[in-house]
């Protein structure tokens, strides 16, 4: 028992390792939100009139909405007038090579262990680096361009591909969807846009590195991925943020649209600042992620490793509209200290023979609360729909909590829906088994946790899996080695 306590002690006292701040000159809007701020953002981004109209419409709708209180998380009320809605790093000219990137920025990436040049040279990953809302660097653009793949910052897409943006923006997550999605629609500063043309299989993993910088900046990202008929893309999103005392709001929107036979794989590693071990500070992560399997035989797969943020509130979802379409959700959510997570997935079956899988693994430690909340809805016309959900929780320490709130709504008799959930701590017999074979308790715990999360980690692309494992270990440092 004393060993256990000691492990927990170490675990709860581990500090956030990626906490540092890059000193880049900012070009910020004044605090607060009103129509003028939205006009300011739109003007800064040199947006066309229709985009501004969309933003204003969203803002006018947003002020009629009330902040949702149903998630199983607790935090002081957010003052939306106390947030800076626009902040961009100064050098805004287009860059052709890494030499032109601010050296301090490169230093930041180096500290994160994912320097641009390394990625570029070794792994062949095109990185659209987003620092504080504006894309400053897009690599591999030319290679992708030859295949007709569009991968660029959102503002660039608005300028250069207005037709695509007009057609697809808001088609999956409508402007009026929910409180934070509407706010995002009004004030989003940048993000990524990705279009894969018909029949093209994207040869590399596309990746965006999100990074929150500059004190008091809310980050409102917008990502739109469109996969045309028969195409395939694997998209990576990952984030780390500097240590800070005041709470920062992050309300991103990710939309995925797949046509017939298309497949999109979206992987996330989220490691934003979780707050100090006393529960002070940390990121509020209120994200709307949704994919629409529009065409027949299309597939959307979400994989997420959530280790950061003071509060996580997100439900990557799939709307399975096309016949035979497939939706998948694999998640590992780790909470420690005073972190709170309310996450899960929604699978909405509309088409025939649609199939969905939800695998959610929650690990709670310290004084954290970890909730799974999910919806499986089988529509009346969704013949032969199939769902399998499994949500397991692992508890470490007696001050944390694990909760599951699955909603299962079935309106068709041919549906086969299964849901399983278990909650337990690491079995004493499992640890004993390892001890008996000469593995000390700490390594045994690491082994068991890794095995527990393996099912999800296996779904991550190579480059990410390594980092995800590192993050998992880091978050539970002291107990999982």
């Amino acid at each position, binding site marked *: 028992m004393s060993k256990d306590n000691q492990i927990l002690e170490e675990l709860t006292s581990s500090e956030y390792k990626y906490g540092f701040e890059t000193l880049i000159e900012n070009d910020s809007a004044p605090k607060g939100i009103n129509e003028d701020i939205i006009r300011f953002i739109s003007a800064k981004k040199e947006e066309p009139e229709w985009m501004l109209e969309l933003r204003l419409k969203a803002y006018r709708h947003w002020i009629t909405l009330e902040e949702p209180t149903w998630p199983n998380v607790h935090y002081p009320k957010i003052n939306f007038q106390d947030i800076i809605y626009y902040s961009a790093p100064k050098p805004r000219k287009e860059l052709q090579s890494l030499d032109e990137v601010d050296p301090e920025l490169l230093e930041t990436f180096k500290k994160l262990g994912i320097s641009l040049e390394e990625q570029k040279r070794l792994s062949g990953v095109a990185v659209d680096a987003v620092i504080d809302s504006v894309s400053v660097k897009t690599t591999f653009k030319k290679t992708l361009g030859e295949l007709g793949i569009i991968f660029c910052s959102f503002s660039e897409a608005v300028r250069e591909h207005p037709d695509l943006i007009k057609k697809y923006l808001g088609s999956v997550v409508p402007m009026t969807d929910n409180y934070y999605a509407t706010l995002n629609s009004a004030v989003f500063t940048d993000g990524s846009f990705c279009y894969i043309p018909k029949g093209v299989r994207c040869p590399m993993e596309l990746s965006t590195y999100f990074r929150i910088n500059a004190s008091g900046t809310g980050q409102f990202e917008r990502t739109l991925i469109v996969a045309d008929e028969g195409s395939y893309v694997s998209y990576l999103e990952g984030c780390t943020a500097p240590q800070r005392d005041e709470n920062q709001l992050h309300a991103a929107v990710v939309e995925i649209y797949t046509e017939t036979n298309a497949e999109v794989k979206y992987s996330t590693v989220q490691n934003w600042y979780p707050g100090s071990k006393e529960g002070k500070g940390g990121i509020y992560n209120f994200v709307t992620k949704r994919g629409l399997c529009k065409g027949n035989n299309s597939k959307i797969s979400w994989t997420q490793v959530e280790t950061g943020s003071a509060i996580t509130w997100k439900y990557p979802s799939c709307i399975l509209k096309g016949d035979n379409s497939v939706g998948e959700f694999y998640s590992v959510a780790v909470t420690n200290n005073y972190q709170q997570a309310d996450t899960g997935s929604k699978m909405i079956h509309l088409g025939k023979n649609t199939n969905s899988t939800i695998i959610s693994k929650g690990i709670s430690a310290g004084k954290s609360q970890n909730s799974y909340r999910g919806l499986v809805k089988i529509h009346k016309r969704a013949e032969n729909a199939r769902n399998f959900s499994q949500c397991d929780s692992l508890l470490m320490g007696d001050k944390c909590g694990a909760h*599951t709130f699955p*909603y299962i709504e079935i309106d068709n008799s041919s549906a086969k829906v299964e*849901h399983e*959930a278990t909650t*337990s701590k690491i079995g004493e017999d499992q640890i004993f088994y390892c001890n008996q074979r000469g593995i000390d308790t700490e390594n045994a715990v690491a082994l068991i946790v890794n095995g527990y999360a393996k099912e999800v980690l296996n779904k991550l692309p190579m480059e990410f899996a390594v980092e995800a494992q590192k993050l998992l270990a880091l978050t539970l440092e002291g107990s999982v080695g």
Partner: protein
Amino acid sequence: MIDQLIDSFKKFELQLNGASKNSWHQIRKKAMESFSEKGLPKAKNEEYRYTQLGRILDKKFQFSDLSMVGRDSIHGENILFHDADAYHIYINNGIVDKEINSSLIANGLIILTLQEALGKYPKDIEAHLGNYSNKNNDAFAELNTIFSYEGVFIKVEKNANIDKPILLHYSGTDHLNQSIYQSRNLIIVESGAQVEIIESYSSFEKEEYFSNHVSEIVVEANAHFNYYKLQNQSNKTYHVDNTYIAQEKDSVVTSYIFTLEGKIIRNNLNFALEDQNCETHLFGLYVAHGDNHIDNHTVVNHKFANCFSNQIYKGILDDTAKAVFNGKIFVQPDAQKTNAFQSNKNILLTDTASMNSKPQLEIWADDVKCSHGCTTGQLDEEQLFYLRSRGISKSSARGMLLHAFVDDVLDKIKIDFLHDFVANEMNNRLD
């Protein structure tokens, strides 16, 4: 509607004569305060999300007169199980029939109306009545607390082992056109005692009424309690049942709920495990057809260490029936070494039937084993094929599989006449 209720409550107070000063009435007033703040559940109420009872009842029933209703004569021989070997109590329109009541004698068993108990066992009434239902803030339980006047008081004395089950016959007649009935029970099983209680709900006429029932049950240390509910009203009755069971150390409670007929039925079954080593079993079976709407909400609240709970609820839905299942398991920080299991399985026979299931685990202790499983689907094609390939007709193969599906709940019934009745009903329904 709330104004109507306040008027109704004033009328009710006048009818009470001197009784408006006793402790029970203070509980009523408290419930009235809480109820008038929120009213019946609204459309967005999470607990009543799939069963919009508030709206339906508000439209259908008159809340202007919830005072006591007149007694109707009961035709004993028409009532199900009237000749069964048990202690019979008849409750019609929420009023306990005293004549039949007086024939009850058994060692260690006390059965009274709540009004009588108020005079004879004031301590028990004060300690328990409204104590469990008020904590939960359910609007229907509060409505019952406000307007219920009569009810059954059962006390099983220390170490008594009651030889026959106690059978509570609930029935409703619709003599006032769309009436609302409130009935209430307070059951105390003292330490070491053993008893079986059956609540059987039926209706004589196929007319609309709304019955709102509350049972508060205390099971003391080391007591054993089997609790059966058979809901077999007409397809026009609306029924809300709030049951609160508090278990003390080393007690064992098994609850069974069989729902066979009703327009809208909502069951809130709440278990609070108030000490260590409690054992709780929950079995449920609902077979819905026509436009039945059956909603089962259960809560098992583990507050102390070393308790065990197991839940199996199964449903078969036909025609345009709807069913809702919400099972909550709470494991509080002190409830280490808890084992809690839950399973909900449903079969949909038609595309117009629908099932909403929400199994919910909330756990604050680490050394626990908890799981829930939930499946919804149709009969397994391969199993059907297996039987048909052996020369069994499609309809009987289907019947066999459905029987097999319900059997593991049916088998748990320990009272023969009840088992036979439910099994027979299943035969009629499923073949």
